Structure formats: C-alpha cells, structure tokens
C-alpha cells in the first residue's frame, strides 16, 4: 500500500552517495540544487504518503510495516529491511523533510563561499537520511542504526570547518556524548531482545503489556537505558554539555540539528515507546522532572549568554525540557505538537540568526550588534516572529503548544504544581532572554561602527518567510495534530481550560519581555546597581553553572591528582625502591632460569604440547 514510501529514505541516501562520489565533478550550483532536490522530492513523497494515510480510517492508520527486503532470518532472530508507516512517523517525516528542505534551500546561499560545498550537502543529505531512518525504523535495530548514523552525521557537520580547532573539539564532544547514549540504547535493545525475542516494535509493544506489570524491574531498566540515549541525543541534564558547543558548526547545521531533527529524536523515541514507558511510571516521573529541570536550568543560562547562537541553543534545551515534561506527564501528543511548532520557530530563529551573522560577516557576539532593524528589515521581522512565538505571545504557535503543556503539567494525572511552577518560570525566562537578544541585535544603535550589515539575498529570505508563516499559524492546528496522532497514543490528550492559570502563563511570558525591554532599552547607568547586586548570580549563569568545570573538578581533577600522587610519592619513592630491589634480586634468579624464555617458537610450542598432554591426562583419566 505504501510500497513507494521507501523513496523517502532512498532519495536523501542517493543524494549523499551521489554527492560524495561525484561532488567534486559538478559545479557548486548543481551540487546545491541536487542536495535540495533530493530532500524536496522526499518531502513530496511524504505528502503523498500523508494523503494516502489520511484517506484511511483513523484506526486503520496504524502499523503499516513496509518490508523492503528480508535481510536476516537466522533461526528465531528475524530482521527485515522495513519501514513503519503510521501517523507518528509520517508526522516526523513531514517535519524532518519539510523543515530540512527549507534549511537546505537556505544553505545554498549561506554556504556559497565555502570551498567544500558539495561535501556540505552530502553530509546534510546523510543527516536527513539518518534521521529519516531513525524515524522510519520498524524495529529497534534500525532505530539504533539510524541513531548512530545521526550521531555520525552530526559529528561530521559540527566539525565541518575542520580547520577550526574548537569545531573539531565540539564535534568530538558531541560524538562522545552521543555514543554514551548509544551504549544505553544498545543495552536496552539487547534486553528487549532477551525479554521479547524480537526487536520489532509491533511484537514488542503488543507483547509488553501482557508480559509485564507496571513498574516491573525489567521494564524500568529498559526504559531507563533507552532514556540514556534519549537524554544524550536531546541534550537533557546531565548529558547536555555538547549542545551549546555544537554551535561551532555552520548555522544551517545548527538549525537542522537543533530545530527539526536530531535533538527531537529523544522525544520521538519516548513517544514511540510510550507503551513501554506507560508500564514504567517511575521513569515517566524522572523524565518529567528532568525535563522541567532542564527547562529552567537552560533558561537561566540562556539569559546571560552573549553569543547569539548560544542563546538560541540554550533556548532549544529549554524547549526540549518542555517536550520531555510533556511526554513525561503522559501528554504525548502535546509533546509532539510542541516539537512541531518548535521546529518551525526555532528553525526560523536560527536561520534569522544565521542571516544576521551572514549580514555581519560572521559576527556572533550580540554586544557588537545593534540597530539592525533598518539594515535588515526582513530579517528583523522574521526574527521578531520567531521571538514572539518562542516567548509564547498569545495566538502564536508557541503560545498554543506551550500553554497546552503547562496546563497539562498541572492538571494531568501525573502533573503537579512543581512542574507547573517550573514551566511558568521557564516561560518568563524565555520571554526575557529571547527579547534580550532581540533588543541587543535589532534595537538601539549599532555598537560596531565597522560593521556594514546588509540584507540577505532572496534565496535565504524565502525559507525565512515560509517558516515565519508556519510559525505564526501552525498553532491553530493543535486540534488536528491531536486528532491525527491520537490513535498512536491510544487516546487524544485532554485539553484543559483554566483561564486563571492561562493568564499567569501569558503574563509570565509578557513579563519576561517587559523586563528585557526595561533592562536593555533603557540607559545603562540606571541599572548599574542591579548589575552589582546580581553579579555573582550572573557569573554562575554565564559560566553555565560551572558544569564543565564541575565535571572537570569532580572527575578529571581527582583522577589526575590521584595519578600525580601515585606517580610522585607512591611510585617513585615507595614502589620503585622496592621494585628495584626486587628486580635486581629477581634478575639474578631469572637469569638462571631464562632458558625457558628462549625466544624460540618451537620451545614454546613444545611447552604447549606438554600442557595439552597434562590437560588431556586430567580430562580423560580423572
């Protein structure tokens, strides 16, 4: 029925292979168009799949496994090259290919000056393919393959400017963090295979509720291990440190990784495995807690950063926190909805930021920007749209999705006031930091007299406008998304009405904006006292809570210190002396018996035979 659906995967793969083989034989323009075309066509195929899916009855939309090829059939272990078509995966396809396509188009212009243009597009196509594979996988095996490939592609892309040391280091960091997650995933997959005898989603999910009670140890273990992977990929505490560093890659990469695809994989994974997670409420609480915590935590860090991309990166973490909170409290479709709206406005923000950076010839420090609203009117508008969506100004998409999550965090079965409070706090901070960036960048006067900002070309503006449009209007599709995803999660999430709480959320967001306006639009001098007072807090926040340093202090330093101690004291003064003495004594003895260590292979072999005789003697006669 969806036999052509594998085209969605095949096209970007084709693009990757083609561009990496013939990339240097074709012109830049051709490479760029080829890279875009594969993703664009993939998007079109997705649309066709979607239309076919919509033509079906809602309950028949589940579980279409398209087997391309029976790969391994070894005894009980079966592995098919198959993709899963259901509303969830198609939903993800739409986001990945749609937003990915826009980012590709944007990159055509953005990466124009780069000498390794075709390599860039090859990697981008690889990334899209890996992400699609991750999403389309019908079993845990291909999920892990996609998972690892996404990691690889992100490594390649973050370290794309390989002559930049920081980029390479960041890429390595991201890779290591991801691999930590992969290990968890692999162990989880092995446990699943051990318990269910299959890796297929269908088999596992149908067998799980019958096989395990709620909060069964095994189930908790599996879900926790899966969670490790999800946390690593979605940059949740404590595996979040790679994400801000990943901003070293080109801006379209940041947009692709942080908006549409990679970081959402964790959310997708939990949503996909909701059957398992529903069997392990403890894990759910953990997810919600970590999500809320990350949201607050990243929000605070985002408030003080000066790198435009870093701020947006922290906001990504923060918004991912929302999504985790959502899936943690069991409102999966809200999580997915927020994932979608976030994909639009975050891609929009990143691309606008990229446009700013492009216009300022690579400048990323917001302190050196300012007054760009005149120089770059279009970018100004698109950024503003992204900012109000992110800040949750009413009637924008961010408002609908965020509000739904925060409402549920209070009202839903697993919600409570703490989650709600953290959500509201984060909402306020969100408004603050994004408008801080906005004011810094677009308002006021230019702080850098040498900068000559210019508006980005049309080909970059197109995707921005499209994204801005969707970011504004997609909020109204909330009901439809619920309807569409409902069958996957068993039941559509309930929409809670509580005008008081809603008002608080809105006010929090608007308040954040207002404070930002007051702080950054007024004269500096009046705030000097506040700065003085908040300096320690500011330092902590600016240094990202010293997390890297804490890791350094807690793990690296002690190990080094212990090592140094052992090296200096214990080894040199204590052991060495003993060893020297022992050694010189032993040398005398060993020289006597060194004929055993003759260096001749045949002697060793003879020893082996003697041993064999002895062992056989033992086995046979005793």
């Amino acid at each position, binding site marked *: 029925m969806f036999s052509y659906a594998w085209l969605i995967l095949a096209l970007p793969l084709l693009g990757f292979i083609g561009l990496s083989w013939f990339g240097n034989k074709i012109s830049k323009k051709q490479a760029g168009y080829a890279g875009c075309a594969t993703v664009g066509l993939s998007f079109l195929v997705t649309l066709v799949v979607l239309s076919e899916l919509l033509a079906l009855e809602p309950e028949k939309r589940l579980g279409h496994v398209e087997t391309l090829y029976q790969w391994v059939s070894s005894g009980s272990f079966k592995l098919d090259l198959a993709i899963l078509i259901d509303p969830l995966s198609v939903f993800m396809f739409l986001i990945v290919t749609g937003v990915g396509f826009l980012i590709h188009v944007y990159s055509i212009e953005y990466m124009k000056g780069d000498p390794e243009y075709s390599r860039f597009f090859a990697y981008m196509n690889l990334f899209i393919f890996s992400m699609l594979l991750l999403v389309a996988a019908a079993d845990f095996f291909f999920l892990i393959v996609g998972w690892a490939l996404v990691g690889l592609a992100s490594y390649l892309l973050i370290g794309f400017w390989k002559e930049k040391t920081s980029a390479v280091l960041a890429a390595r960091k991201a890779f290591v963090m991801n691999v930590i997650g992969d290990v968890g995933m692999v162990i989880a997959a092995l446990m699943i295979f051990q318990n269910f005898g299959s890796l297929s989603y269908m088999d596992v999910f149908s067998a799980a509720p019958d096989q395990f009670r709620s909060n069964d140890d095994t189930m908790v273990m599996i879900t926790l291990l899966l969670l490790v992977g999800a946390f690593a990929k979605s940059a949740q505490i404590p595996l979040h440190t790679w994400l801000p560093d990943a901003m070293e890659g080109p801006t379209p990469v940041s947009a692709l990784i942080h908006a549409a695809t990679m970081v959402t994989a964790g959310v997708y994974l939990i949503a996909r495995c909701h059957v398992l997670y529903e069997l392990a409420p403890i894990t759910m609480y953990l997810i919600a807690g970590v999500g809320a915590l990350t949201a607050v935590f990243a929000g605070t860090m985002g408030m003080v950063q000066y790198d435009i991309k870093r701020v947006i990166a922290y906001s990504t973490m923060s918004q991912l926190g929302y999504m985790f909170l959502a899936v943690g409290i069991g409102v999966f479709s809200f999580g997915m909805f927020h994932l979608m709206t976030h994909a639009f406005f975050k891609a929009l923000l990143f691309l606008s930021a990229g446009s700013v950076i492009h216009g300022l010839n690579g400048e990323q420090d917001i302190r050196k920007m300012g007054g760009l609203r005149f120089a770059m009117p279009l970018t100004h508008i698109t950024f503003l749209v992204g900012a109000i969506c992110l800040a949750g100004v009413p009637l924008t998409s961010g408002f609908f999705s965020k509000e739904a999550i925060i409402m549920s965090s209070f009202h839903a079965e697993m919600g409570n006031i703490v989650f709600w409070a953290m959500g509201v706090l984060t909402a306020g901070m969100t408004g603050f930091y994004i408008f801080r960036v906005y004011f810094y960048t677009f308002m006021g006067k230019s702080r850098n007299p040498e900068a000559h900002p210019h508006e980005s070309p049309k080909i970059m503006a197109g995707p921005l406008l499209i994204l801005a449009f969707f970011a504004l209007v997609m909020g109204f599709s909330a009901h439809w998304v619920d309807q569409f995803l409902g069958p996957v999660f068993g039941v559509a999430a309930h929409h809670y009405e509580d005008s008081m709480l809603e008002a608080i959320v809105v006010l929090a967001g608007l308040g954040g904006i207002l404070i930002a306006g007051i702080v950054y639009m007024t004269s500096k001098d009046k705030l000097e006292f506040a700065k003085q007072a908040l300096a320690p807090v500011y330092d902590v926040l600016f240094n990202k809570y010293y997390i890297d340093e804490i890791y350094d202090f807690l793990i690296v330093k002690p190990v080094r210190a212990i090592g140094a101690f052992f090296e200096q004291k214990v080894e040199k003064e204590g052991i060495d002396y003993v060893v020297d003495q022992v050694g010189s004594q032993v040398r005398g003895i060993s020289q006597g018996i*060194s004929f055993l260590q*003759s260096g001749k292979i045949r002697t060793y072999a*003879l020893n082996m035979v003697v041993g064999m005789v002895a062992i056989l003697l033992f086995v046979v006669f005793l």
Partner: protein
Amino acid sequence: MGNQFVLIISASIFCIGTVGFLIRRNPLIMLMSVELMLNSVNFLLIGYSSILQTLDGQIFALIILTVAAAEVVVGLAIILTIFRTRHDLNVDHINVLKG
C-alpha cells in the same frame, strides 16, 4: 567405517602435524604442519557430521577453512617480511622474544 576410524586417522594426523611443528626449523614447513593439524580437525568434524547426520560439523569445517586461509596468508606475509629484513629462514635464529 565407524567413528573409531575417523578418530584414529584424525588423531594421528594431528599428532604428525604437532611433531612437524616441533621438529622443523623452516617456518614454511611449520606453517604447513599447522595446516595439517587444522585439516585433521576438519576431517574429524566432517566425519562426525556424517555420522551424526547434522550439518553443524560441515559449517565448523567451513569456518575453519576460512580461518586457515586467513592464517596462512598472514603467516606467509610475516615470513616474507622477516625474510626481507633478516635474510634468514631458520626459526631458531629468530629469537627476538628471548627473555
């Protein structure tokens, strides 16, 4: 032929291979002796695969065949490299490992 015959032939060839490995000084012939030993095991496996009427033995033999091919190729390459650097093929003269 009963399984005793298979066992005896296999055991004798295995022992002959062992002796060859122990008494010869030419690494090529030592490698050949190892082949003999591997072959004897193969023979045992296939003989028993026929006697027990399963194919597991044949599969094992096939894997051993692969391993043996890899081993020989690498072994010969090592011998060739040693000969190129030392111009000598007597294993007793190669005692870098001497303690």
